[in-house]
């Protein structure tokens, strides 16, 4: 019997793939965490009306959201139940819109300012008086592309 066994298996040790699932799970978790549907939580109740002549909102980064509706029950004790405007995360008045537009604009290359759209998510029961004030402010801020968000009505 020789000291040096020649016929012992000489396979290359198998590469351990045990950590691969971890990496993939990390990816999975990353996607699940990062995929955020909306960046502002809506503090007003918005039941948007239905319409037929809809156009999809393109270029999400160019869209600023304005929500108008009665505050949701949690906030009603504090803010009452009259329709309010929500810009980003806070309730606002029409006077705040000018500043809001400027902040939104500052994030975007000046050449593309005319592509920016304001998505108005407005509850169907809101009275036009408030909306007209908002529209006037938007016009004053020269932010004129507006999309009235609505659900598709099936005929």
């Amino acid at each position, binding site marked *: 019997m020789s000291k040096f066994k020649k016929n012992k298996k000489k396979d290359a040790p198998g590469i351990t793939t045990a950590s691969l*699932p971890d990496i993939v799970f990390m990816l999975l978790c990353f996607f699940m965490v990062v*995929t955020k549907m909306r960046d502002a939580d809506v503090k007003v109740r918005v039941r948007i009306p239905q319409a037929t002549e809809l156009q999809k909102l393109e270029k999400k980064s160019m869209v600023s959201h304005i929500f108008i509706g009665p505050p949701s029950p949690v906030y009603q004790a504090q803010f009452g139940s009259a329709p309010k405007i929500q810009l980003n995360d806070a309730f606002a008045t029409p006077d705040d819109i000018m500043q809001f537009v400027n902040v939104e604009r500052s994030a975007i290359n000046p050449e593309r300012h005319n592509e920016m759209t304001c998505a108005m998510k407005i509850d169907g029961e809101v009275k036009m008086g408030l909306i007209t004030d908002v529209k006037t402010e938007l016009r004053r801020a020269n932010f004129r592309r507006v999309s009235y*968000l609505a659900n598709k009505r099936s005929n």
Partner: protein
Amino acid sequence: MAERQIPEINAGSMADIAFLLLVFFLVTTTIQTDSGLQVTLPQWVDEPPEPQDKNSRNVLEVVINGANQLAVEGEPGFPVESLKEKAIRFITNNGSDPTMSDNPKAAVISLQNDDGTDYSTYLGVYNELQAAYNAIWESEAQRRFGRPYQTLEKEDRMAIREDYPKFLSEAEPTRFD
């Protein structure tokens, strides 16, 4: 005592399973795209423009009052469902009916609402008016090119819109306060 090795569990397929999950999430996550009525607001002018003395036959007056009732050309209680058809007839009249527009380029639809109008009513009416224009452009596209409006080249679309321009003016809302 002989060294007994625990056989290693083959975790190779685990990666596949995880990838499968990953792909499943990627495929099923439909990021909800909002859609809405696209509107371009008129430019802000500090001084209100001179009231234009448009020939009244070229103006289709649509008024919504605070009780969400519609009046078209002073005719109250107009049903929203017939508004699209009425607008189409008005725009494409080409002078045949003396109460309607001379030609599509002169036709203006004037929409006025009240401060107390519900947004849903307003949007419904706006939607019908937009639908009227869309229908006109669509039929014009079919007549000229035999193709749907949306598939046309940009200049062709522009040509159609030049012949049938969208003049939808929104008057200052009535306020009772």
